[in-house]
């Protein structure tokens, strides 16, 4: 797997042709994809070109949550791109299904798509670079492409924070609270107070 990615990166180091595959996106990401070809960002300078035929492509820029209607066509288009290939999942919809990730007419992002591809079509999931954003700004897309080409080490990392401390802390906390209120600690309920 690793070597495959390495080979791929070597192959597309200076020339990466991308097929744009919209699987039911709102257009936001699609226009930003076009935007990276406009003068301000001009990714042609990095050897990147948008191609109209999946046959010519080295990578797929996938946008949208993959609607139920699009699913077979998306699978076909992915199939039509010759190996080795990579998928750039662009935007919140492609990365995680977006705002409609769980509705009746949406598959819900590439993870789900790959699951269905494997189960129903017996296809392996291609390596994927996730580019979150809604839509990602053009620079974020370029960053994603740079990550895919191995030009940049991604800096986004999984973060897990686990709160330390345990049961003893309750007493300390309550002391603190009670201290603030000039009451003694304890849980006695005073029944004689009105308004409880």
């Amino acid at each position, binding site marked *: 797997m690793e070597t495959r990615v390495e080979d791929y990166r070597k*192959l*597309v180091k*200076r*020339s990466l*042709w991308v097929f744009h595959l919209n699987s039911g996106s709102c257009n936001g990401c699609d226009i930003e994809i076009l935007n990276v070809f*406009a*003068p301000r960002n*001009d990714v*042609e*300078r990095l*050897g990147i*070109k948008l*191609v*109209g*035929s999946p*046959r*010519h492509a*080295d990578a797929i820029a996938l946008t949208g949550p993959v609607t139920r209607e699009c699913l077979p066509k998306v699978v076909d288009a992915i199939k039509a791109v*010759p*190996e080795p290939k990579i998928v750039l999942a662009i935007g919140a919809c492609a990365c995680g299904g977006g705002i409609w990730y769980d509705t009746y007419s949406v598959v819900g992002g590439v993870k789900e798509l790959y699951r269905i591809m494997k189960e129903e079509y017996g296809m392996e999931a291609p390596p994927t670079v996730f580019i979150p954003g809604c839509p990602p700004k053009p620079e974020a897309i370029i960053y994603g492409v740079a990550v895919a080409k191995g030009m940049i080490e991604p800096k986004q990392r999984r973060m897990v924070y686990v709160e330390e401390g345990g049961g003893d802390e309750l007493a300390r906390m309550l002391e603190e609270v009670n201290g603030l209120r000039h009451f003694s600690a304890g849980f006695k309920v005073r029944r004689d107070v009105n308004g409880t």
Partner: protein
Amino acid sequence: MMPELSTLVNVVFVVLFAPLLDGIERKVKARLQTRQGPPVLQSWYDLIKLLKRPSVEPSGSFGWLFRLAPAVALSSVLLASTFVPSLLARSMGFWGDLIAFVYLLALASLFLALGGFASCNPYAQIGSHREISLLMAEEFSLAFIVAGLAVSAGGLAFSAMFPLPLKASSVVGVLAFAVMVYVSGARVPFDVAEAEPEIVEGPLIEFSGRSLGLMKLTAYVRRLLLFTVLLNFVIPFGGVLRSSVYVAALLVLSAVYAAFEAYFGRFRTADAVRFLKRFAAAGFVCWLLAVLGW
């Protein structure tokens, strides 16, 4: 130098330089669109990548024709390049090399179209249709121009025509030929066969990997050869000076053509064909002048 060796040098030069020239054109266009553009070697990078990738054969295609087309197309332009003096002034000419040259280039176009038909993709078929109708329309003008120039130079061999004698007919002929070079280079507004927004690169849609690379290389070489013939018509001297003037002129010519291309909208097929039919008049004038001996 021996003609064989010099021809070999020329062929190698043509193959190496043609993608570079395309890279330069891309750069020029980019600059005229206020953007940085790709590195000048970009077309080479693209080609190398394509040649490394496998080619996929679509299911419904005529396999053998589909497989054969890129190879035939490339070999015909390469064969054509042996007749034309490019970097070095000597090459393997023979008495009818002009005719052979013209038809070898046409053969390359034809196989591009046939490859498109063979892929059985509807866009490719429309593209191939357009390619053929354009080819027909081009032939008409080209026939007059070539005939005019041949009469003017007094022979059908390149050796007689390079350079052309300074006559009214040759001036008109060269100018008309310059336009034909633009047209058959498949440039906007005459790129109807490959129109990306309409029919997705037309005949090339189903080609991938190696065969796409060969097709692209064919197109680059074709353009370079057309430029070369045009320049040979006018460069009057030989030797080292010729080589450097040739390369410099090639760069200038290609930049000018690229600038034109960047600032034109695409024709409809019918408009393009109509234009070419009218343009045949220029070829006719050239021929007439030549016949009259001017």
